[in-house]
Each structure stands twice: as structure tokens, then as C-alpha cells.
């Protein structure tokens, strides 16, 4: 475990990170209104073949983070600061041309809603081959052959026929597969999946997750998985970053995180999800209030108004400083002054999980 104990987040040239995000902040401004800080100093890194999870509830800034990395946010009214390095190239403030060359070829994204991210008036085949023709220097014929191969790889039956069909003729799971095929067309080094299974049924979700798992293991793609579903994270991600109100509040390996959550928010999330393997009588312990109750980070811990562990020094006014993201044991980082404590000797399952 100590070998793995490389503090992530800081500059770490030793590991071959595909993507390094440092102090990324996104501010939305609108005339006549106070600026909104959707993402506030987020740092993480992804290595080749690694899967990291960004977890949080709606409005915590996880999707904006992914859009900022891809450079897909509009210019107007949006300020992006910090640094996003993709294989040594700085992406924040990069020219449109550079981004265009990278997007689709080296870094790709799978969106949440497959119907609204596919063009309804263009057949699937054209949409898949478009990427190949643009980036891979293939002619139409080669691209079509490649597209059939891609659709086959992501598990779409009868791909040659599907190429001529329009998005509305495919089922939800198939559309998501088509979208994944498009994202994988040029074997990207980085894949960002923004809630790829939220719109799908559980049996289809299982198929898509299996597909993503195979991709990461087979091709060494770095995968950033953005989701609100802790179950998906538990099965797929190597490292998990929990976000709340625009900041990462806890980072850990998945075994550590689920066995011993330290941030009261993480613990609260885990306690409030009904589990399939728990009995009917098991009570749920919800978190008080809703994400709307967050206070600005400058005034203290944003989660303090909903937190059961909160004390006076969670507020900046009392402690004199904002709550920092600090080293919290090997491979872990935590933003909390009064974390959950766990007995030092963990149960059998937990210990074996943590010592992986």
C-alpha cells in the first residue's frame, strides 16, 4: 500500500499521467448578477489504463469540470482558470485549432443523453465515419469498413444495416453504444464519460459498464467516469474523487473510500443509499436538507449547514482560514476539520479490501 502512496493532485512528473488537472476553476458571470463559481480549484490526475471517478450530486460541478477539460464551454460569460495538461499540452487557453485536433482523436467524451448528443437528421453511419474521415485520413470506403468494425466491437448486432439507420430507430442502449463507438473511433488516450448509464435500464447499464471495463483493460485508455451512482463507482473506478459545491472534498482509492469514508458527506451518501444486499428493516439515514443549503467555500465548509459533525471552526470566521484539502493517510486526501473516525482495527472484509 505504501508503494501506491503517491500524493495525487500535486505536480507529479514521475507517473505517466495522461491528464493532469490543477487548480481548475470555472466561473460563470452574468451582467447584473453575482458570479457563480461552479468549479473551484479542482486538481486530479489520470494515468493510462486508470479509471477515476468524479462523484457528486447534481449541481456539484462534475459535468462543468469535464466540459472545461474538453474546452467545450462557451467563451462568453465563462472564465476558466488553472491548468489542464493533456500529455504535456496545456489545454486551458489553447487555440481552437489545437483543441479540434485533439478532440475526437486523442480525447473523447461520452455524454449522458445519447438522443440529444446524436444528430437526429443524420444516419448513425455518417456520424461515426465523420470522426474517422476527419482525424484518421481514411477515405469514405475505408471509414465505412472501420465503422462497421467499431459498431460490432461495441456490441451492436447487424452493424452494416445499422449504419443506415437514424438515431430514433435505435433503442437507448444502442444509441449509447453508437456514441461510445464514435468516442472510440480514433482510439483516444483519454475518455471522459459523463453519466453514461444514467438514462439506461439496469440490465443495459450492466452491458455498457462491462464494455467500458473491457476498453480500459484492453487498450489502456484513461477513463474519467462522472457519475452520481456510488454503485457504478464501486464496480469500475480505481480512484474516486467526491465533489461538493465545486470542490473535491475527499479523494481515495475505492476500497478505502467505501470501507472508511472520512468526509461526513461521503459517509452520509453511503448511509442514505438503499442497498440491494441489505434487509428490509435496515433504516436509511438521509443527509439533512438539500444541496441548495450549501454556503460559499470562502465562508467555511460548504457542507457545514447539513453536517452532523459540524462545529464552530468549520466556519472561516471562527477558524480564520478556509478548509484546505489535506493529506489524510496514504493515498487519501480530505477536506474536513471534523472527519468521521473509524476504529483502527477494521473488520476482515475491510482490511483485505484496503490492503489490495
Amino acid at each position, binding site marked *: 500500500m505504501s508503494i501506491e502512496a503517491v500524493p495525487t493532485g500535486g505536480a507529479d512528473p514521475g507517473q505517466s499521467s495522461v491528464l493532469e488537472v490543477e487548480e481548475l476553476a470555472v466561473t460563470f458571470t452574468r451582467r447584473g448578477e453575482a458570479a457563480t463559481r461552479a468549479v473551484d480549484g479542482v486538481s486530479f490526475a489520470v494515468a493510462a489504463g486508470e479509471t477515476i471517478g468524479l462523484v457528486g*450530486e447534481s449541481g456539484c460541478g462534475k459535468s462543468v469540470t469535464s466540459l472545461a477539460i474538453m474546452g467545450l464551454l462557451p467563451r462568453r460569460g465563462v472564465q476558466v482558470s488553472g491548468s489542464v495538461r493533456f500529455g504535456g499540452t496545456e489545454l486551458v487557453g489553447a487555440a481552437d485549432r489545437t483543441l479540434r485536433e485533439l478532440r475526437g482523436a486523442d480525447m473523447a467524451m461520452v455524454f449522458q443523453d445519447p438522443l440529444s448528443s446524436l444528430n437526429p437528421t443524420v444516419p448513425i453511419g455518417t456520424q461515426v465515419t465523420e470522426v474517422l474521415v476527419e482525424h484518421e485520413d481514411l477515405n469514405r470506403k475505408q471509414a465505412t469498413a472501420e465503422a462497421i468494425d467499431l459498431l460490432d466491437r461495441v456490441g451492436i448486432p447487424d452493424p452494416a444495416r445499422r449504419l443506415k439507420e437514424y438515431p430514433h430507430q435505435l433503442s437507448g442502449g444502442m444509441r449509447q453504444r453508437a456514441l461510445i463507438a464514435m468516442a472510440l473511433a480514433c482510439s483516444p488516450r483519454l475518455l471522459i464519460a459523463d453519466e453514461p448509464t444514467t438514462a439506461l435500464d439496469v*440490465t443495459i447499464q450492466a*452491458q455498457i459498464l*462491462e464494455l467500458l471495463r473491457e476498453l480500459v483493460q484492453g487498450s489502456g485508455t484513461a477513463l474519467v467516469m462522472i457519475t452520481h451512482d456510488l454503485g457504478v463507482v464501486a*464496480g469500475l473506478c480505481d480512484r474516486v474523487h467526491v465533489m461538493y459545491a465545486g470542490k473535491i472534498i475527499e479523494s481515495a482509492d475505492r476500497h478505502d473510500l467505501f470501507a472508511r469514508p472520512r468526509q461526513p458527506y461521503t459517509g452520509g451518501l453511503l448511509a442514505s443509499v438503499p442497498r440491494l*444486499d441489505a434487509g*428490509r428493516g435496515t433504516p*436509511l439515514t438521509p443527509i439533512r436538507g*438539500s444541496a441548495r443549503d450549501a454556503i460559499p467555500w470562502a465562508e467555511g465548509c460548504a457542507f457545514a449547514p447539513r453536517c452532523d459533525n459540524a462545529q464552530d471552526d468549520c466556519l472561516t470566521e471562527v477558524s480564520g482560514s478556509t478548509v484546505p484539502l489535506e493529506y489524510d493517510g496514504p493515498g487519501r486526501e480530505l477536506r474536513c476539520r471534523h472527519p468521521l473516525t473509524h476504529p483502527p482495527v477494521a473488520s476482515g472484509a475491510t482490511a483485505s479490501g484496503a490492503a489490495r
Partner: protein
Amino acid sequence: MTPPEQGTGPLLRVEGLEVHFPIRRGVVFDRTVGHVRAVDGVDLSIDRGTTYGLVGESGCGKSTLGRAVLRLVEPTAGRVVFDGTDVASLAGEPLRHMRRRMQMVFQDPLGSLDPRQNVESLLSEPLRAHGLGGGREGIAAKIRGLLDAVGLPAAALRRYPHEFSGGQRQRIGIARAISLEPDLLIADEPVSALDVSVQAQVVNLLEELQQRLGLTFLVIAHDLAVVRHISDVVGVMYLGSLVEQAPSDAIYDQPLHPYTRALMSAVPVPDPVVEERRERILLAGDLPSPANPPSGCRFHTRCPWRQETRCDDEAPALRELAPGHLVSCHWAEEIRDGRLAPKSPEEVAASQGVSIRATGVADIESDALVQGVDQPIERT
């Protein structure tokens, strides 16, 4: 008028319920070219004060079943017996009175609340419509009680739905549903639109209300973990019919139908240790079109345990394998005892030909159901 069984026995009995939606074509001539069999012969009964959880994937007909019980859609055939009275036989005023006793909580809390009505008006409307509550003061007092019951401040009265968060809106929806003191509450995906931390609050609220008011619940959801948490009896639907029904713990301890097993193995558990160990049954392909359901057992096109005999041509009946545990599978005992081995999804897909989805004339129209639009096709 009052049948003898009123007040005893199960509160709701559904017998052979069928809801078919016609598929229409043509501009000048309105031809019916087929039917979407959204609900195709469902029997179930719900005891007083218990919770029946109905699970299934989108397009399996669970929402339509819930609506047909309330007669928000007309059943094609079958009976819905509520407290001894056949709801399907009622019309006009008696139906309106019956509906007071069965209320619904909808999935989308924003879509089911009128954006131009404030909370006071939203909550007093059902009371006025049924002439309950006892005048202006009576209604005002009653509404305050309702808000209190669902955990909203009295200041909420003057506000409009858009001013609330998702969880609070769902609380308003629940308050409206219980305002008439119903006996049966049908909750269609009550928490699926909510954030995880808020889901638990609403689930707890529903449980608390059930205990306090002695409500009977029919909870329709796709989330097996939520259903397991609140239900006494769970029914699993696939393509318009029940494939398995059992007490909550029994169905999760020992699912007997292959579809139930696959469904359960697909639900991610927020625990990496469990995730790495548990068995995973991947299903091949998508849900077939309910306009053109497969012959025999409807699950045979995706079933990893499909056998050469019986599955393709003989529709299995719902059989009782253990007390209260009903399953519709020819091979349930063999699968339970491990005498049959599952096949991989690739083998299943191969044995069913290349295309897994049913193709046919009615394919495109019925797509809405396959694609997870959980709403019946409107009849014009």
C-alpha cells in the same frame, strides 16, 4: 350496492388485467395496424396496510398498470377490484368518489404540479373538489397539518412549485396525494428524479406516513434497491406480465426467475468488495417490442437458461413454488438446484439470429415504449 367482502380481504385485487394500445397508421383512413400489449394479463392482490413493489425495466408496462388501476387509462380487459368494488364497472360520480380513496404520486414532481398554482391552492383543490375539509378555516387548518406531516414549513403556502427543490416538490406531491386521506397510494417512481441524499428523505417520509395513516402502497420503480427497502411483496414485470412475485426478502435471497436473477445481478452495490465477488449475468440485447412480443416465454430471446423445448412455444403460467413465491418459468426448479447452466450473452444472441430486436411493421411506432418513454401512447 355494498358487496359483502368490503372491509375484509385484500384492499386491491387485479385480475387478468390487460391494457392494449392500438397502433394507428394512415392519414385519411385511420387504420389500426396492431396493438402494443403494454399490460397483458396481470393478476395481483395487495393486502391492507402493506406495500407492494412493482419493478421492471422501462417499457415493461409497470406504469401503465398503475394508471389502469386508477382508470387513468381504460383497461382493455380484466377486473380491478378495490375494496370489494370493481373499479372498471364504475363511471361518473361513483368513480370520482372511488378515486378519493386511491391517490397517486407521480415521478416528475415539477411536471405534475401546476406551475401557476401556489402550494395553498394546489393542496386545497382536491379538498374542494370532493367537498371535504369543512369550509375556509377547516381547509386552512388541514393544509397546515399536511405541510407539517410532510416536513415543509408553513411559509411554503404562498410559494410556487418552481421555488422548491426537487425533494421539496415531491413532498408537495405527496401532501396532495394524502390530503384526501386515501386508502391506497400509488407511487410511480417516487424518488427516481431525486438526488441520492434526498431520495432517502422521501423514502423515509413514505414509510413514516404509511405507519401513521395506515396506508396501502403500490410502489412502481425501476430501482430494485429502493423497492426492496420499502416493499413487503415484490412483483417483477417483463413485457407486460408478471414473471415473479414473492415476499421482499425471499425474492432477494433466492430469485427464481432468470430475468429476476439477471436484473438483480445488474444492480451495482456501493461496496467494492461485494462488486468484485458477486455473480454477474449479462443479458443479450434489448427488450423486444411489446407490439410483437416473442412467442412462448417472453423472456426466451434473452434468457441465458433457455432450453430447446417448451421455452419457445409454450407460455409459462405463474406457479407457486414456495409459500407466496410465484414464478413463471418452466425450468425454475432446475435452475434453482443448479441443474441447468446459463449460457453467455453471445451464445444467446447467436441462437436467436443476428438481430436481437423484433423487427416488423409495427416496429417504429412501438419504439417509444422500447426506448424508455414511460408513457402510454395517446389515443385520439
